[in-house]
């Protein structure tokens, strides 16, 4: 298994490096004359040249890339052009906020999705099954900003059930913070629920039809024991593996949701960076997104291989 993991890690690192190359090249080809943009069209050309020299953007692109990469490995991404602060500080805070939001969404959607899938599988073919499947499918395809806005209108304004600002007042305890985060987490939950429920349902059906289930029933075990001790464990295997692969959609959704709720997360930060053409921030932010995605998929592979002994002991070739 270690060989398998090492190989995956190596591939992930190569992909990460390629990503850094793509992002850096894209950002630099697009940035144009940085000094001119900061100082404005009426500034003296010598001042522009001097600023460019100070920012280091007049060096050859390869040198710039290596210098940036070197800094990146120390988590030093330079200074943001719009915030005049080190990028790493901004990113760090934003990442923590986004992770909180993602965690709340996760904690809600994983049990809910699994429950939905299990119930659907146990009632297979009947109305409840179709209801859950179709509802899940429909919820998945609705864009987060649509469901987010509808939820704001319904739950926040008309019924006044939940607060519509995602940011809890400063100094609130974790429970209050979570309370404020429920509303923004809901659109994410809706988008992810359908897929999770579908995978859980498929896994559950497969497990229910397996031989070991028949054995357990024939042994005379009560239905509850059969389901909880034998069926569930095997049914949940593909679900867990799948959960991490949804990170890509989660991150994409975060940008929109943070925009709607004005939440200081990484999505909001990237949006501002894109608007103001703040390339150091944009580069670093996109890299962070890529790292998170690749880490999540790596962890998913790891979890899957841990839970599936066939992979752990090397597949019989």
């Amino acid at each position, binding site marked *: 298994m270690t060989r398998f993991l090492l190989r995956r890690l190596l591939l992930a690192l190569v992909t990460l490096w390629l990503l850094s190359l793509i992002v850096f090249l894209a950002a630099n080809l*697009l940035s144009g004359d940085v000094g001119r943009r900061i100082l404005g069209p009426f500034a003296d050309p010598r001042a522009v040249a001097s600023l460019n020299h100070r920012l280091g953007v007049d060096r050859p692109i390869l040198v710039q890339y290596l210098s940036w990469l070197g800094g990146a490995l120390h988590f030093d991404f330079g200074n943001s052009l719009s915030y005049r602060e080190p990028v790493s500080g901004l990113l760090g805070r934003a990442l923590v906020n986004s992770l909180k939001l993602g965690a709340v969404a996760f904690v809600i959607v994983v049990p809910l999705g699994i429950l939905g899938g299990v119930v659907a599988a146990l009632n297979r073919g009947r109305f409840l099954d179709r209801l859950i499947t179709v509802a899940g499918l429909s919820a998945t395809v*609705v*864009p987060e900003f649509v469901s987010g806005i509808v939820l704001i209108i319904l739950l926040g304004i008309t019924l006044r059930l939940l607060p519509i600002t995602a940011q809890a007042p400063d100094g609130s305890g974790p429970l209050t913070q979570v309370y404020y985060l429920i509303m923004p987490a809901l659109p994410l939950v809706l988008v992810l629920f359908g897929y999770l429920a579908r995978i859980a349902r498929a896994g559950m059906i497969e497990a229910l039809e397996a031989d070991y289930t028949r054995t357990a029933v024939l042994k005379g075990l009560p239905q509850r024991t059969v389901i909880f001790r034998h069926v569930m464990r095997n049914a949940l295997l593909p679900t867990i593996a799948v959960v991490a692969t949804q990170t*890509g959609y989660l991150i994409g959704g975060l940008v*929109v949701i943070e925009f709607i709720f004005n939440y200081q997360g990484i999505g909001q930060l990237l949006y501002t960076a*894109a608007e103001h053409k703040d390339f150091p921030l944009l580069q670093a932010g996109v890299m962070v997104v890529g790292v998170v995605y690749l880490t999540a998929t790596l962890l998913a592979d790891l979890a899957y291989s841990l839970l599936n002994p066939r992979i752990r002991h090397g597949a019989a070739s």
Partner: protein
Amino acid sequence: MNVAAVPVERVAEQRTTVRRERIRLLLRSPTFIAGAVIVGTWVVCAIGGTHLTPYDPFATDPLNRLRPPSARHLFGTDQLGRDVLSRVVAGARGILIVAPLATLLGTVAGTALGLVTGYFRGVVDEVLMRLVDAFRALPVVIVGMLGLVALGPSTVTVILVIGIVFTPIVARPVRAAVLTQRGQEYVQAARLRRERAPYILFVELLPNVLAPVLVEFTVRLGYAIFATATLSFLGFGIQPPAPDWGLTIFEHYGFISGGYWWPVLFPALAIASLVVGVNLVSDGTSQALER
């Protein structure tokens, strides 16, 4: 199966019967019908455009700004006094042009990529696949932001961005299909005939991998609509004064807290219904094809 023993006319007849049977199954499926009705309605709106709207979607009426839904304006008026119902109906055209175009771009590019990597393999395959993986790590929205910065917000930006994001996603199944096909005899026969690579790729292989390509296209179309609406909502895509749904939500979303929910809710429901409709159709189709 001894094909020589069965007359050609009989085989053709059987194929038509199978196809007719499938179409009949399709027309009976409630999911497909529901989806088709929804999508059909929006297609009619897109084609009809301004001929179907009660008011001109671009006609502003500053004296009647932000009026709630009433008998005169079924969906109310927006911040410039334009009739929301008209703008919702007219907005169908934009999204129903952009999304299929973007999907087409992504599918064509992705198919080409899949064909090349699947057929040539070796270093080219490895390098391109790593690049593909790197691109897949970036969600549509993020690439959209980079596109915004590069090309400025416009309809073309949206099409290009979505097309670029879809290319690696489509390339994977195409590549897989090519990998299974390249060992077949007709490919080897073509190579023995000294046919050049482009010929083999496009005349021999392509028709045989069309099945997964078509499936990918229909799946991607749903996601394209999703992505187009999202990018317009963030201000990256279709620009004012177009009656685009995402754009309208973007323009009026600040008014919600003041209680002006109608310019936002109706386009939102329009988007939701369209994406659900498209997915019901593709789901119904895949179910019918499975049987």
